[in-house]
């Protein structure tokens, strides 16, 4: 089952951060190496997902009163960006969709063969298209205002995860299909933690690479199934029980990891490593993006996705402020149509293609200023990381705005869930307001400016790395772009918010 991976015979295997190992925090390593650690994290989110589906399908169809819309569009999104900024990809770690894996494996046994994911889909283009579909549907069908559609979206995710992982190898859904997970993958590049090898020499001498391929540990070798490398309990440092310990389903090899891309934080590697040699190290939020991490493994598609996420994030935010509605009315008059789907398609196209053009122009200008030739693809490959940092700031500020507005509303919403079904509870809606309105702009502006500074730092590092002394010239087009986009973000955040279900005129 295992195959040898050629590693450098000396020196570091990959450029990994060497910060403090968070697994040294009391109890954390022991918890993560426990075989049911992930399940413990998944069960609460599974229970919440069940509530989302039940209340969305059968509850009161009023978004602020329904668990589906409140938990999905307020709490999930808010906590995702908080986790990405402070910890890492925690929501993939606790993803309840992966609990379909058991039923999917059961179905898989009935199928004649496991299909191979088509090679032309082994990239991030499909994910980009699915993310576009989700963002477009969000605006076109007012998903945020519809508990019923939100519940169906949750069901679709579960069915999709089950179907893809039943037909294709485990991990296919996470890597190539899941829009939520890939949003997290892209933006976990600014997270302050990363999985790394504690001692690369231990990995170098490791025969079976269980962090990648998995292992099986049994007291009696005759009980082993043979699908994984067998290691006896006395070969395991800090033994964590018997059984099968799967490796990385997204095919990441711990000592070679230089990016959080595709890392679901499932911690399979930590459990599978027989030498307890996997660390979760602290690092700077700018470290990964300044080191060209995606060139070899993912290349252009993921950088294009990063740029698109920035401009779709801008659209997602601007669609809630008055100037957008005025612009939509103007656009409607110009094209002579009041068809909202058509107008939204134009707007999405303009932001996506316009954003790519703007990012490409900035990157080419920076390359030219640095003395490189005119090569748009190479320029975007070099500078595209800058837009990822900036994009996270956009999404984080927007999602935090909503989260901070009504984070505590989950309490009356849960009270309402039971009141609606006959319980003698009087929901206390005064709890819903969590933070004074006056604090919202300073907090969200600080987040936006913070990640603009991260983006600026990435610009400087890339410029000096690739252009030497001429980097002082090369950085300016990108710095101007970063500053300009950050100012646009601040102007949006400073606008009075308006929550309408249509881009044109009154909804009702």
């Amino acid at each position, binding site marked *: 089952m295992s195959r040898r991976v050629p590693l450098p015979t000396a020196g570091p295997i990959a450029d990994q951060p060497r910060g403090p190992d968070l697994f040294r925090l009391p109890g954390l390593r022991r918890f993560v190496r426990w075989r049911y650690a992930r399940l413990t994290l998944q069960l609460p989110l599974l229970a919440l997902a069940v509530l989302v589906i039940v209340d969305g399908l059968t509850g009161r169809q009023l978004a602020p009163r329904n668990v589906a819309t409140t938990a999905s569009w307020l709490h999930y999104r808010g906590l995702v960006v908080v986790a990405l900024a402070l910890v890492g990809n925690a929501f993939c770690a606790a993803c309840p969709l992966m609990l379909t894996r058991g039923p999917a494996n059961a179905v898989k046994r009935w199928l004649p063969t496991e299909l191979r994911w088509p090679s032309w889909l082994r990239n991030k283009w499909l994910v980009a298209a699915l993310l576009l579909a989700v963002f477009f549907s969000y605006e076109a069908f007012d998903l945020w205002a519809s508990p019923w559609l939100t519940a169906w979206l949750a069901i679709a995710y579960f069915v999709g995860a089950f179907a893809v992982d039943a037909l294709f190898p485990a991990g296919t859904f996470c890597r190539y299909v899941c829009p939520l997970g890939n949003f997290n993958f892209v933006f976990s590049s600014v997270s302050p933690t990363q999985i790394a090898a504690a001692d690369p020499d231990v990995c170098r001498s490791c025969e079976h690479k269980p962090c990648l391929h998995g292992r099986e540990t049994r007291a009696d070798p005759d009980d082993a199934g043979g699908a994984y490398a067998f290691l006896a309990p006395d070969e395991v440092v800090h033994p964590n029980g018997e059984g099968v310990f799967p490796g990385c389903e997204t095919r990441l090899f711990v000592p070679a990891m230089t990016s959080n891309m595709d890392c679901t934080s499932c911690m399979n590697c930590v459990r599978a490593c027989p030498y307890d040699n996997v660390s979760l190290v602290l690092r700077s939020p700018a470290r990964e993006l300044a080191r060209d991490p995606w060139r070899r493994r993912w290349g252009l598609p993921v950088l294009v996705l990063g740029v698109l996420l920035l401009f779709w994030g801008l659209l997602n935010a601007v669609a809630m402020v008055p100037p957008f509605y005025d612009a939509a009315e103007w656009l409607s008059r110009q094209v002579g149509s009041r068809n909202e789907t058509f107008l939204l398609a134009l707007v999405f196209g303009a932001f996506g293609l316009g954003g790519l053009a703007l990012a490409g122009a900035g990157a080419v200008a920076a390359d030219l200023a640095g003395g490189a030739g005119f090569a748009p693809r190479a320029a975007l490959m070099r500078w595209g990381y800058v837009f990822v940092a900036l994009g996270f700031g956009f999404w984080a500020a927007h999602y935090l705005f909503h*989260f901070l507005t*009504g984070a505590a509303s989950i309490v009356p919403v849960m009270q309402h869930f039971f009141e609606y079904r006959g319980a003698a509870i009087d929901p206390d809606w005064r709890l819903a307001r969590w933070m004074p309105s006056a604090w919202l702009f300073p907090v969200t502006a600080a987040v936006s400016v913070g990640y603009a500074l991260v983006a600026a730092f990435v610009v400087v590092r890339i410029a000096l790395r690739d252009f030497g002394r001429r980097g002082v010239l090369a950085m300016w087009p990108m710095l101007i772009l970063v500053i300009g986009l950050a100012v646009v973000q601040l102007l949006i955040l400073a606008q009075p918010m308006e*929550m309408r279900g249509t881009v044109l005129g009154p909804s009702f």
Partner: protein
Amino acid sequence: MRAVLIVLSLTALLASCRPPDAGSSARGASAPDPVAITIELPEDPAVGPATISVRVDRDGVAVEGAAVEITGDMTHAGMVPVIRAAVEAAPGVYRADDVVFDMAGDWIVTADVTLPDGSTARQEAATTVRRP
């Protein structure tokens, strides 16, 4: 294969669902049929205080002595609702003068009515509040 059939059956079952009616709830279900609730909203509501009236009739006769609570919710999760008790301004007509729409956008106004006999009824109306 059995698991696939179960999943397909459950999906078909759920697909036959329709969203619950806007005004339905455990409370609303207890209202006697002939009760008619009419919510009268401002014609062109703007951000700020508004007057909202609720007319309650049973079999075409105004219902006096009911308790009426008016709630304004935005259509986005996390927004704090505006809740006001309406006072009877005329036989069967209940009015709240201080319903404050604090943000432009789509609002759902709900009238929760407790009739003198203790039964309850609910009605919703939607409106778009413009900038001031």
